[in-house]
């Protein structure tokens, strides 16, 4: 058996493979994920290859070649893999080797040998070369021959794309144990922290990358993740933010040097401008101002300038707003409300930008925790979320046979019925005569599931009724009291839409739905607690046990699932 196929000889890492950057990570003996720096010391390794007289440059060194050797530098190619030429968007490659049609696939015409001629190198080959470099960097760091990996991909990566990536990886000496989706890897990275508390919650992962942004709404139930909705956008991106700075500094440059010309209109100037602007953008994530400095930017003229963060935030404000809108759209798409979201995990490099986080925070209520470097001291580096998740997953499955992994990830295993409504009990609260619903199992919980609840009883104990129901989440909107009008009476025809400006109060409440069962517990002691255990099968049969905590006996009940599974829409 070849080493990568034999679990005993496996050395597995996690790889995140982005259009802009890739990362590699491994899991330590203590189960901690660690991101590996390559020989240049980079943990965010540009997904770029460049060829200079037959020599292959990778990562940061290749990126530097975008200025002098753009046509032999291949960048931003991940999304071309496994696709036909007609369905790719070549836009990100504007300043590097352009993609061309090659049979039914995509290639780059580059001089990748010492010879003076251009070769058509397919995107599959480019990917293989890139992954090989990553594998070597990881192997060098670990001192072990890395031969397998878990690789993260976007949620909309098609089977054809995965297939192509799998083959490219194999050619690079990497057995792909599993592809996992980037947002789920991010959730796993957070959940794998030793101090993480497991709780049912809805998490949004919002990834503002270099060439695209991706948002996923994920139900996390008992440590199992279900993607409820996703959105992808190829306009809202780090490129746009870079562009804002490029436009700004170009104008500044032209103001200062009337003769230099527009640096955006010359390829080499543009490349320099872009590299420096990305650096400035990164610097503004930590500093309140940053320096721009490029030798011979255009027309042989050097240019230095500074910009402060608030200026940048203002210039780019519509892009931050667009990103925040994208995040709320995804929530809408999942038919949820911002109030349903417990956490927003900000991923992707641009989540380092404080304004990215604050724009998103503003789109959510205070109850929603936004996890980004600027909003949470315990946030994980947004660049590393995917790769950490991948490394953790790799450590979980590396001892399995490939066949075993494949069977475990088979739809027969993953396709699972999810509760359409929350299930819970009716309690008593002050003025509500009909009872208040309290969820025990939330909607979108995969089945089967078992949950227990401890419920308070009336002060004197005695006999209680336990009513099991379905509950529907309801957003209660309270309009603010219309402001008392200024005493003047003649202001009658004042438009009444002024009050719209005031924030309405929105709360998450429950509407009591279908009653499932009633049970009685008698003779409870003063101050007793009642334990309710609910088991719901994949067939929607419900098995429940009601008992007094510390008491004897109890009541059992059985509910059968809905009659006909056919008219599911009913």
């Amino acid at each position: 058996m070849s080493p990568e196929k034999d679990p005993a000889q496996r050395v597995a890492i996690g790889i995140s493979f982005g259009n802009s950057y890739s990362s590699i990570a491994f899991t330590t003996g203590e189960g901690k994920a660690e991101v590996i720096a390559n020989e240049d010391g980079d943990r965010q390794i540009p997904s770029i290859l460049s060829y200079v007289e037959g020599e292959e440059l990778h990562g940061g060194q290749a990126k530097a070649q975008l200025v002098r050797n753009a046509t032999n530098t291949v960048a931003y190619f991940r999304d071309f893999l496994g696709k036909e030429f007609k369905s790719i968007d070549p836009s990100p490659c504007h300043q590097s080797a352009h993609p061309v049609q090659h049979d039914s696939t995509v290639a780059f015409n580059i001089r990748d040998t010492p010879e003076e001629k251009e070769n058509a190198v397919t995107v599959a080959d480019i990917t293989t070369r890139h992954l090989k470099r990553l594998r070597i960097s990881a192997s060098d760091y670990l001192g072990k021959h890395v031969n397998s990996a878990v690789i993260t991909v976007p949620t909309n990566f098609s089977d054809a794309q995965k297939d192509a990536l799998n083959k490219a990886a194999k050619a690079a000496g990497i057995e792909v144990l599993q592809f996992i989706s980037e947002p789920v890897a991010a959730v796993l990275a957070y959940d794998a922290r030793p101090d993480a508390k497991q709780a049912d919650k809805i998490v949004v992962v919002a990834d503002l990358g270099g060439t695209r942004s991706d948002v996923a709404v994920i139900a996390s139930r008992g440590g199992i993740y279900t993607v409820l909705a996703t959105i992808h956008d190829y306009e809202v991106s780090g490129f746009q933010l870079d562009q804002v700075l490029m436009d700004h500094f170009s104008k500044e440059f032209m103001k200062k040097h009337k003769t230099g010309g527009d640096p955006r209109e010359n390829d080499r100037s543009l490349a320099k401008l872009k590299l420096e602007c990305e650096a400035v953008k990164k610097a503004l994530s930590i500093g309140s101002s940053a320096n721009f400095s490029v030798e011979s930017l255009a027309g042989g003229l050097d240019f230095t300038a500074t910009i402060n963060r608030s200026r940048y935030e203002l210039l780019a404000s519509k892009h931050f707003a667009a990103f925040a809108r994208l995040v709320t759209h995804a929530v809408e798409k999942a038919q949820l409300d911002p109030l349903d979201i417990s956490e927003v995990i900000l991923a992707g490099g641009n989540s380092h930008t404080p304004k990215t986080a604050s724009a998103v925070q503003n789109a959510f209520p205070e109850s929603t925790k936004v996890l980004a470097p600027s909003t949470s001291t315990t946030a994980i580096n947004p660049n590393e979320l995917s790769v950490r998740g991948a490394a953790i997953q790799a450590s979980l499955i590396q001892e399995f046979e490939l066949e075993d992994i494949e069977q475990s990830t088979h739809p027969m295993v993953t396709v699972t019925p999810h509760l359409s409504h929350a299930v819970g009990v009716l309690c008593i609260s002050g003025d509500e005569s009909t009872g208040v619903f309290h969820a025990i199992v939330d909607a979108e919980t995969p089945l089967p599931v078992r949950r227990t609840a401890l419920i308070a009883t009336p002060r004197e104990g005695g006999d209680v009724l336990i009513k099991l129901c379905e509950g529907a989440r309801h957003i209660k909107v309270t309009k603010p009291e219309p402001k008392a009008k200024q005493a003047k009476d003649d202001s009658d025809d004042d438009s009444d839409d002024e009050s719209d400006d005031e924030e309405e109060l929105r709360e998450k409440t429950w509407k009591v739905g279908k009653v499932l069962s009633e049970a009685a517990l008698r003779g409870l002691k003063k101050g007793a607690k009642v334990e309710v255990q609910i088991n719901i099968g994949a067939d929607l049969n419900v098995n429940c046990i009601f008992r007094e905590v510390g008491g004897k006996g109890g009541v059992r009940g059985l509910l059968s699932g809905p009659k006909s599974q056919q008219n599911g829409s009913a």
Partner: protein
Amino acid sequence: MASVQVSLPLPVLPEGWAGEKDFKAIGHLSHATDRNIEPVGPHFLAHARRKRHKRTFSEDDRIQAQSNVKKVEDDDAGEISEPEDPLMLQREAKDWKNQDHYAVLGITKYRWRATEDQIKKAHRKKVLKHHPDKKAAAGQAQDDQFFKCIQKATEVLSDPVRRRQYDSVDEAADVEPPTKKETQKGNFYKLWGRVFEAEGRFSKTQPVPKLGNEKSTKEDVEHFYNFWYNFDSWRTFEYLDEDVPDDNENRDQKRHVERKNQNARRKKKTEDTARLRKLVDDALALDERIKQFRQAENAQKNKRRLEKEAEQKRLAEEAAKQKELEAKAKAEQEAADKANREVAKKAKEAAKNAAKKNKRVVRGAVKDANYFHSGGDAPASQIDAALNDVDHIILKIDNEELAALTAKLSGKKNGGEITQVFKDEVQRLVEAGKLKEGEAKSLA
């Protein structure tokens, strides 16, 4: 999972609640949704172990299992639905201000209604097709003009502020109001409904009330026109601004153009407000419902007037009748009174005559009683005294007593008897206090 803690208390068991072994099944769970769980993390591994039971699944199983799964990913771009006008494809990007951004993105059927998502998807489709690299691959000239048009269109339409500026002047979304003739020939609600729907896009207040149809209530119609007469529009006209020269050039010139633009915007806004006002006036004038409501109102008014008149007539008639009745009663009363008076007069005269006669009888009786003189002819003094006394008595008594006295005296020829009658009368009068003792001495 830690257990859920519920701090609100359970309700007390209602009196008389009963269930077999203290449990009552009532309903079933609602149907579940099939979704893919992510094969990631330690909890999934446990799930997979339980679910697999060491079974092996086939490709058929895969298809079967996935058949009902709720889709999460949208289908990719798909086909461009609108045909592309060859002339449009030859547009110059520098003329972007005059391009139809919706046509460039192939979403003319949506225009101002297009959602952000639709714009994004349309943009992506166009990019995939028209990127200059694609043209190069197809052996076409490296021409990126239309690609730049696409980028411009997206730039404008995906910025909410700039999109409104463009939508403000997107004539292709305008619906010309029908003429009077057209309206009269066609269906008012259909023809004008479209106009108002298009105009409604400029309303700050949404949703905009609908024109409705012939069945709309008066209230709705009034609300509709009130809304349009108080229309609050976000329409602006800066999209039509003349280009302001770059900041480095002549400042005065720049300021001049800016001022010109400001004035032009203001003027266009005023014109637009007037245009809309006229449009609403026209619609109102042609709206049959308004006439009908007015007619109905008039009819109502007429009805009320007629009713009022009828009532007045009825009241007048009633009053006349009453008056007549009263007059009749009065006349009858008067006649009766008159008759009574005559009867009374006659009776009075009769009584007077009777009294005269009675007096004569009484006086005659005195003579018959020989002036109350016993034996022989009565001396003159006695006659005087007797006559005086009798006159005195007559004076003191009324006609009835006189009649009674006369009755007592009638038929009596005997002087003694007559005298006695007078004496009795005197006695009665004295007792009744009408005569004093000592008066009528002749009869004492």
